[in-house]
């Protein structure tokens, strides 16, 4: 126990909070698994064996990490600027549609031209979509928490309309674009699996985000604006500019996530491209303490949880929705961790009171 405390003490406070939140969520999850009559050890073993214990499992976990990490990085940058952008889901769809449209229109171009064009158009589309909320906030003071979440629905329906209409594969019955040619696909890194080059994009994006936040004046301004807008204003910083950067960076990265799903996984733009990556990424950004490398680590953890969940269900008989509960618990413990010292104090006071009571009666 003592050594455990020593380890925790050496970690930065933020990381300790995240690790504690995850451990606590797993403990409560174990209790819930036991409640359905399954050994938590068996269930968790099945979960992590499926997610990490084979080449295919690990590849799938990394594939799932890509959209979660890219959206999470974008949301983290927005959070750093004090922008509560929860519109990554819609920005991902818009980005995916742009990438799909360019990929189909540019069929025949060499990969080295086509892929960057698709990625760039996806980032511009995502940033533009996020930019709507930015304008609404900066011009009309509309709360981005409301506008970004509403724009998600608009985006998903708009993309659905495009896929049923102008972008639809003329030779197919389903609402999706034509299949991308091999030049419009991200290369597979590990034969026989779906692991694609998107994971490298994640690493590059995380490094760039880190350098931006901690090595560039612009990044410094972004952080100051996020911490205290009034102080930033008094220091003569351009607050509106920092807020705008927060919005656009989030949109661009979420759009890039859409691109990587289209070019790396689905090989065309489809309806229901994302099962809520943009929403899960909000938790990922929080769990990663809005630090770029933390976000990537958190994305990997959540990806493993989601990939392992299906197998846990069929192998151990634990409903896969339980991992959704664990994900929710992580947030709860993360937000509620400030309450732990308070509870500790309250318990200590209660103990003192009881001790005094004991002395009196004695």
């Amino acid at each position, binding site marked *: 126990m003592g050594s455990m405390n020593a380890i925790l003490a050496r970690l930065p406070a933020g990381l300790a909070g995240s690790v504690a939140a995850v451990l606590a969520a797993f403990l409560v999850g174990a209790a819930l698994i036991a409640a359905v009559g399954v050994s938590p050890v068996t269930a968790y073993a099945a979960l992590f064996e499926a997610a990490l214990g*084979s080449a295919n499992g690990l590849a799938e976990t990394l594939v799932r990490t890509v959209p979660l990490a890219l959206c999470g990085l974008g949301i983290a940058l927005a959070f750093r600027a004090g922008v509560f952008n929860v519109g990554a889901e819609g920005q991902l769809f818009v980005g995916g549609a742009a990438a799909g449209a360019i990929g189909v229109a540019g069929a025949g171009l060499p990969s080295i031209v086509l892929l960057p064009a698709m990625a760039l158009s996806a980032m511009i589309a995502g940033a533009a979509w996020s930019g709507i909320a930015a304008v609404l906030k900066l011009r009309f003071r509309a709360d981005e928490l409301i506008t970004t979440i509403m724009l998600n629905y608009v985006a998903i329906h708009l993309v659905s309309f495009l896929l049923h209409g102008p972008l639809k594969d003329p030779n197919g*019955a389903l609402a999706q674009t034509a299949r991308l040619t091999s030049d419009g696909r991200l290369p597979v890194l590990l034969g026989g699996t*779906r692991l694609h*080059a998107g994971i490298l994009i994640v690493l590059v994006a995380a490094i760039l985000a880190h350098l931006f936040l901690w090595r560039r004046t612009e990044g410094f301004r972004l952080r100051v604006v996020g911490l205290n807008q009034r102080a930033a204003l008094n220091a003569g910083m351009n607050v509106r500019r920092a807020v705008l950067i927060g919005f656009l960076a989030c949109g661009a990265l979420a759009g890039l996530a859409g691109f990587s799903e289209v070019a790396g996984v689905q090989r065309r733009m489809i309806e229901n491209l994302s099962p809520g990556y943009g929403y899960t990424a909000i938790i990922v950004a929080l769990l990663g303490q809005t630090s770029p490398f933390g976000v990537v680590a958190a994305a990997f953890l959540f990806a493993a949880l989601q990939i392992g969940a299906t197998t846990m269900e069929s192998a151990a008989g634990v409903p896969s929705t339980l991992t959704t509960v664990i994900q929710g618990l992580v947030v709860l413990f993360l937000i509620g961790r400030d309450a732990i010292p308070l509870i500790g104090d309250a318990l200590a006071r209660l103990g003192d009171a009881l001790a005094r009571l004991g002395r009196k009666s004695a």
Partner: protein
Amino acid sequence: MFERLKKGLRIAVAALPLVAGGVAVAEADGLKVAMVLPGPISDNDWNSVGYNGLQAAAKELGIEVAYSENVSDADAERILRDYASRGYGLVFAHSFSFGDAALNVAEDFPDTVFMAGTAKELAPNLGTYSNPDYQGAYLAGMLGAGASKTKTIGWVGGMPAPNMLANLHAYEAGAKEMVPDAKVLHTFIGSWFDPPKAKEAAIAQVEQGADVLSAQGVGVIDAAIAKNVFALGAMTDQNHLGPKVVLTSVTWDLGPLVTAVAKAVQDKSWKSENWSYGIPEGSVKLADFHGLDAGVPPEVLKAVQAKFEAIKSGAFTVPLDTSNVE
């Protein structure tokens, strides 16, 4: 650059199970069969048919089976891969929209047999099975037109996929055979599972005069109950969903097909082709009328029964038309 990275990754990934103390995929001593379904297995419709077929084969052959329900198109490939990598020798992708995913996975798992429902493109280890319920739809069209007082009948389906188009065209052809000037309304709701939308579309058809509805999706029967018109169920006997309005249902029993495919995989005689089990094979039938046949002219019932026998014996072949409609 990619080559080097690939090599490094391959080594790392190969070493990982050893480090983690993972176990190798257990060699199965018997065939394991999995099915991946797009919706809930309790839908009394397409997904129930798949699930029931799988369980029937499990019972018949004593093989191990597993299934995943409510799988989205975006996630289908991952789930198919998961089963293939866990040693399942036969995997059913039970949706028209999983064709792409099955094609991709089949390429990477040449020793696993895949069966994709109504797929367009096949591979040496990827076969398909059609949904010949269009044969039953012809009978439904005859019955519907014969039972209609307005000479107008409706049809509500999901997406204009080939099997749905075949169903619609056969329904129309059947209706025209029975009542040459019958009017057939149709709506594609653009989704495989959207009960409120299906209900809305069906109510709109009733308001245009339809008094018999073909329910090619969940929600139509609710509309038939609300508007008190006849509905023709699909896939399973759906009478319990509307005992007073569901005249009969065109049922599809996938059990014989799943069993035959599994057997063929077991004795290595399986071939990549289109497996079709319809009325002649005893897989597509009309369900019991549950007493509602009293509301249908007897000569109509007689004609439908005669047509069923003709299809079964091969004397009549229901035209297969998958051309697009407006």
